[in-house]
């Protein structure tokens, strides 16, 4: 059944990706070889065979004929070996009984697509069975092309082979160019006529009727590349024009391929000829209705035209056709942001990044959404990632600059704008933003200079005019303000700022009527003119005092505060349904927690950090038996073999080490004192030497400066986790860099860090990797507030942590056997008790209001310290559990009703 289904899908592959995936499946273990044919012959045969068939010669053994040919050819070459001669013959198009295959499926794909654009091509996949191996010949030595093509030959006894249909993948003619384009652009090594036919013979032999058209297409592609790289707009424009010319020629040569229309459409879009672009892209879609990329590109073109609904429609199509097309998500995100649907935009950017983790544009775009919603840490994170991945990304610098500006770090902002302008000297937005930054700093002349440059590069941008007007206003050049504001209004009659600026200038010039009209206009457009005036002059009285004249009464009235508290502090971001993006409940609670106690970073005496980079792990991390052998070989080995913990060994409360040992070959180690270890590491010398960094080949890559911290008591958690997963380690495990370490002796902190409150807070402040996973990061971890509680309270939490460390190690608490269900519930119940105490620590007022106490009733119980519990510990714990769990016990009652507390409901996601 299963194989049948597979072969069915094989006959009807639809997209480039499907075809490539299908072939890729067979490449994993190198057990296959491939051949591409641009048209389908009846048999997979050698050219000699076809030759003989044509003249209808019936020879018993084709290889005898081949041997004769090789013999005859010997006279013309220096080669002695018959096979080398055959290789050369094959290379120059001579007749041999060799069939070209390749070990690189991409090369086979190339041949299947290159040529015969009107015919279906195919890729033949051959498994290296014993029978095939007998026919297999490898080219030896000198022929460069054979090497570049990863060539192998099949020398079939009868001149042909007949692979079953299962192993033949047909390439529809309309996909040929798409695949060629894919091979040129998306493979780690470019595969194109240039690299495949890398000598003159190749060039000659590859000529055919369609060569000219292909040539134009390829010319177009490479011009486009150049255009993408060009920085000067005029140059870009010129190169793109060239690109379009080549594509047009290819089309005129009757190479009517959707890929060409798609590419030409894109190029039109790049030079701003949107209508032409949409025409071409529509044509591409018409020729190939499942052309996801063309939909995506047309959507982008619609977007540029401001037709957002059409754009989103096209992106939806693209995504439907090719759900992993990251670009389409990114573009749709842009479209959603355009119509202020930030949530949907955010979702799309997330998906785009998930699909393509190196997608710089998507990071940049997501950063903008975060910035708009006021989430600056996440915004910075995204901009930084974008810049790291693409250091010449002017847009990301510009956006990060804006974020710095919002944060009030104007100098850093200016630095970023400088960088953006350096990378793109015609970047109008960056000039305008830098102008804003200078304006903030009070450097009015520089601001005006920048605004003027911005206007020069983007003469239709009203904002730069309006802002320059502000700068003139500050300088007291009111006429110029009015001039600029009027220019801005002429470009955008809805720009409330410009009206307001003109009004302010009018006040200074005592042009009351005009000022009044402008104030009304600004107000009508939704501007809070009173707040704006207040920010500039405090109030009318102050303004009058400074100017030495009275503001006309009716105008003064317009600028006077009537109710208090009307200055909105932050802009509320609404989603498409008009709801605030984040509930105020959540924001307030997060702030409240943030302001509680001491941040963990300050509270701790030592800094948290990640473990050691143990790469290559197979060299540095050894099992118990290897350790014994190493020590037996030389006793000194024991000194640097340390018990080892992996991030994945970590459970809540307690780690479950897998009995591994780390060879702690730290930087500067005197390796010769450990001969057994040295000998062992030599086995891995190749892999060890390949690592980056300045360490000696036998040293750990970046071993920490302070190895002692492993030996100290600490809390450890994995670097990536679903729920808070801190474990207490007092036995001095060394950890890999998949673990995060907090050096401390205070076990109660483990209870704090594993609590539901902290998990909620952490997921709020940190950068969640996906919806499901949290990541340990010092920057965020150190923000976790440690509530101020008494040492008795800390000790009580610590006591329960000790209980849980023990319980976590018991088989019955983790068993799926329902006979032990009660023990599992006990463990969870003790965790909930800690949660209760932590809630009380953070939110005492709220809990006490409903008379919910945990510390006091627990202290009243005088529960035994872990060490005091004698005899059967489990049975002692069960007794404690059943007692605390009785339905009237205050702890049970308070835990049961804990979610009637509003903040608890917020944290539990119930509000």
């Amino acid at each position: 059944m299963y194989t049948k289904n597979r072969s069915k899908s094989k006959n009807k592959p639809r997209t480039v990706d499907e075809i490539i995936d299908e072939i890729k499946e067979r490449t994993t273990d190198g057990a296959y070889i491939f051949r591409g044919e641009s048209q389908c012959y009846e048999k997979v045969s050698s050219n000699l065979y076809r030759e003989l068939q044509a003249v209808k010669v019936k020879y018993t053994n084709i290889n005898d004929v081949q041997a004769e040919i090789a013999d005859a050819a010997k006279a013309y070459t220096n080669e002695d070996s018959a096979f080398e001669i055959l290789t050369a013959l094959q290379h120059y198009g001579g007749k041999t009984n060799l069939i070209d295959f390749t070990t690189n499926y991409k090369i086979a794909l190339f041949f299947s697509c290159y040529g015969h654009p009107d015919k279906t091509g195919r890729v033949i996949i051959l498994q290296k069975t014993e029978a095939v191996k007998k026919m297999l010949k490898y080219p030896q030595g000198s022929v460069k092309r054979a090497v570049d093509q990863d060539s192998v030959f099949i020398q079939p006894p009868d001149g042909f082979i007949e692979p079953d249909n299962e192993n033949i993948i047909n390439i529809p003619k309309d996909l040929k160019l798409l695949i060629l384009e894919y091979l040129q652009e998306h493979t780690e090594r470019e595969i194109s006529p240039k690299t495949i036919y890398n000598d003159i013979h190749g060039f000659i032999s590859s000529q055919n009727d369609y060569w000219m058209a292909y040539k134009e297409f390829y010319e177009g592609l490479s011009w486009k590349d150049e255009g993408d790289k060009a920085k000067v707009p005029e140059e870009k424009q010129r190169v793109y024009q060239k690109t379009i010319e080549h594509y047009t020629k290819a089309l005129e040569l009757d190479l009517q391929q959707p890929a060409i229309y798609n590419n030409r459409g894109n190029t039109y879009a790049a030079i701003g000829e949107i209508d032409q672009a949409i025409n071409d892209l529509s044509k591409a879609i018409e020729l190939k209705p499942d052309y996801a990329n063309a939909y995506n590109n047309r959507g982008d073109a619609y977007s540029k035209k401001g037709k957002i609904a059409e754009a989103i429609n096209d992106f939806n199509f693209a995504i439907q056709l090719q759900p992993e097309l990251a670009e389409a998500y990114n573009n749709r995100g842009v479209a959603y942001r355009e119509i202020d649907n930030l949530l949907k935009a955010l979702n799309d950017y997330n998906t785009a990044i998930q699909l393509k983790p190196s997608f710089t544009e998507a990071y940049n775009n997501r950063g903008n959404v975060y910035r708009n919603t006021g989430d600056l840490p996440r915004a910075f994170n995204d901009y930084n990632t974008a810049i790291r991945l693409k250091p010449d990304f002017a847009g990301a610098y510009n956006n990060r600059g804006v974020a710095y500006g919002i944060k009030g770090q104007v100098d850093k902002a200016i630095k970023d704008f400088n960088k953006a302008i350096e990378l793109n000297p015609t970047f109008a937005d960056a000039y305008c933003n830098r102008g804003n930054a200078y304006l903030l700093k009070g450097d009015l002349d520089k601001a005006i200079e920048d605004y003027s440059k911005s206007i020069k590069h983007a003469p239709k941008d009203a904002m730069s005019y309006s802002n320059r007007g502000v700068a003139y206003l500050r300088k007291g050049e009111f006429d110029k303000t009015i001039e600029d504001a009027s220019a801005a209004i002429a470009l955008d009659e809805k720009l409330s700022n410009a009206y307001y600026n003109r009004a302010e200038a009018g006040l200074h010039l005592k042009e009351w009527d005009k000022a009044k009209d402008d104030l009304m206009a600004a107000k009508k457009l939704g501007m809070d003119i009173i707040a704006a005036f207040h920010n500039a002059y405090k109030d009318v009285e102050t303004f009058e005092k400074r100017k030495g004249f009275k503001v006309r009464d009716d105008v003064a009235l317009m600028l006077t505060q009537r109710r208090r508290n009307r200055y909105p502090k932050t802009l509320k971001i609404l989603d498409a349904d008009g709801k605030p993006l984040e509930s105020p409940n959540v924001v307030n609670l997060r702030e409240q927690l943030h302001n509680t106690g001491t941040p963990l970073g300050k509270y701790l005496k030592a800094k948290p950090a990640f473990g050691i980079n143990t790469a290559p792990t197979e060299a540095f991390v050894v099992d118990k038996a290897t350790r014994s052998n190493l020590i037996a070989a030389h006793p000194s080995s024991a000194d640097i073999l340390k018990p080892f913990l992996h991030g994945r060994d970590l459970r809540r409360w307690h780690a479950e080490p897998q009995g591994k040992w780390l060879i702690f070959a730290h930087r500067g180690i005197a390796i010769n004192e450990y001969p057994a270890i040295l000998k062992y590491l030599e086995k891995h010398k190749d892999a060890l030497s390949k690592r980056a960094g300045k360490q000696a080949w036998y040293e750990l890559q970046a071993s920490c400066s302070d190895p002692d911290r492993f030996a100290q008591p600490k809390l450890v958690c994995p670097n990536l986790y679903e729920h808070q997963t801190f474990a207490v380690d007092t036995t001095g495990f060394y950890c890999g860099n998949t673990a995060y370490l907090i050096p401390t002796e205070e076990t109660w902190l483990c209870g704090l860090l594993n609590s539901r409150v902290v998990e909620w807070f952490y997921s709020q402040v940190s950068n969640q990797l996906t919806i499901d996973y949290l990541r340990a990061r010092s920057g965020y971890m150190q923000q976790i507030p440690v509530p101020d509680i008494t040492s008795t309270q800390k000790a009580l939490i610590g006591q329960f942590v000790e209980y849980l460390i023990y319980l976590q190690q018991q088989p019955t608490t983790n068993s799926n056997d329902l006979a032990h269900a009660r023990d599992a519930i006990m463990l969870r119940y003790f965790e909930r008790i800690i949660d209760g105490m932590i809630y009380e620590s953070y939110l005492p007022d709220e809990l006490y209001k409903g008379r919910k106490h945990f510390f006091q009733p627990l202290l009243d119980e005088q529960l035994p310290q872990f060490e005091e519990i004698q005899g059967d510990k489990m049975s002692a714990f069960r007794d404690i559990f059943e007692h605390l769990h009785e339905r009237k016990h205050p702890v049970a009652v308070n835990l049961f009703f804990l979610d009637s507390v509003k903040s608890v409901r917020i944290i539990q996601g119930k509000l």
Partner: protein
Amino acid sequence: MKITEIDIKNFKAFCGTYHIDLDKAGKNLLVYGENGSGKSSLYLALKLFLESGVDMNSTDNKDSDFGSHRNIFTEDPGHIKVCLRAHQGSKMDAYEWSQRVKETDDELIIEASKAKGFLDYKDLLETHYLHRENEVVNVFGLLVKNLLANTISEQTERSLTEDWNDIQPPFPRRGATTQIAALEGRVVNFNRELSGRLAELQKQASEILRKFGYNVALDLNFQGITYNSDDKTLDNQEILLTVEFFDRDIPEHHRFLNEAKLSAIAITIYFSSILLQPTSTLRILALDDVLIGLDMSNRLPVLDILDEYFSDYQIFLTTYDKAWYEIVKQRTSHSGKWKAVEFYFQQTDEYEIPVYAENKAYLDKAREYLDANDYKACAIYLRTAFEVIIEEFCETKRLPVRYRQNRDKLDSQDFWDPIKVENQNSGFLDPPLIRDIELYRSRILNPLSHTTITNIPKKEIEDAIEAVDRLKMALQ
């Protein structure tokens, strides 16, 4: 803490304002009501009022929005107001839930909602469909989807229903090992939770069941559901109920688990689940028609059980069985802890409307509405008064009333006729009164008359009230 007053306006079936006074002590409430009379609306009013405090922001709980429960026949806004007193002497706190005001997100109400017991006949319907084989009954669906649905999980701190929904399809695709492992983890948690709960329950339930006079022990055998990733099914959805008999004398003991006893067991299990939870300050137990499935002999023990186990709860008991209502009313009348009220429903030309008046003071209500110039409402109460008077007379005198298969189809003619017959023998009604009643019965006391009631002069309606009052005196 007890409820002392309930005020309901334009909610579900309640059109207009209804006020139920439970005295300063906050008595239990026994409600008789015909089907559709508003009895279930009262049950729902209480339930939704208590639940409305949580999930305010969650869009999937439409129930916390008062607007979705408004009476559909009126444009006027409605509300539910509940007054509470800690004890008789303490001051009263009022809580309102309406479209405008929501005071139910108070910790007191939220906690009461979490610990409350609300069971209605629909929860027990499944006992009729249970499959019995060799004295073993699979009660998985009954328990998980009905009786224990709202119990709170020790591990996830959510209701069993939420945990159950979390392991429902769509299941992960085959080979998605991470998702399958996560699902299996949730299944294990669910199993632990349920098996832990059942162990406690069967002890408590067996004890309560003995109050019915059965010397038996319940066994609820649950081996845990399992996820079958090949077939993508949840297997072993089985909680096997068996009964162990300590008393060999129980007759026909192989037929012990009939529907009636299963109902009793189900109620017992529900009670037990409430009793195993911590209790809130305000404790409400409401049973809507749930005793109907029991044999009469098993209903009375329930009263004892309520007395013994739920004496610190405020109980709301509703029924549509008039005979049972009278029995309970009589049984509970001495304690002074109960109040008994009756709901009727009246058909108007436009809609059905519940009619409620304490101590059957329907005529007084009719007069009130007449003074307020609300003729329609006046006519409804007047008609109710008339019907209650003649019906009760027929019942007490045991007059032969025409048999109709559906009691609801009986109309005033069916009671009036035998009274006239009886009158020919005893002559307790004078002829003018009979003439008046006959007259107004067609003009005012008739359900089909209301379209024109507004055209009837006020004087005539006053006379009709007068006539019914006279009839009441004459028949007493």
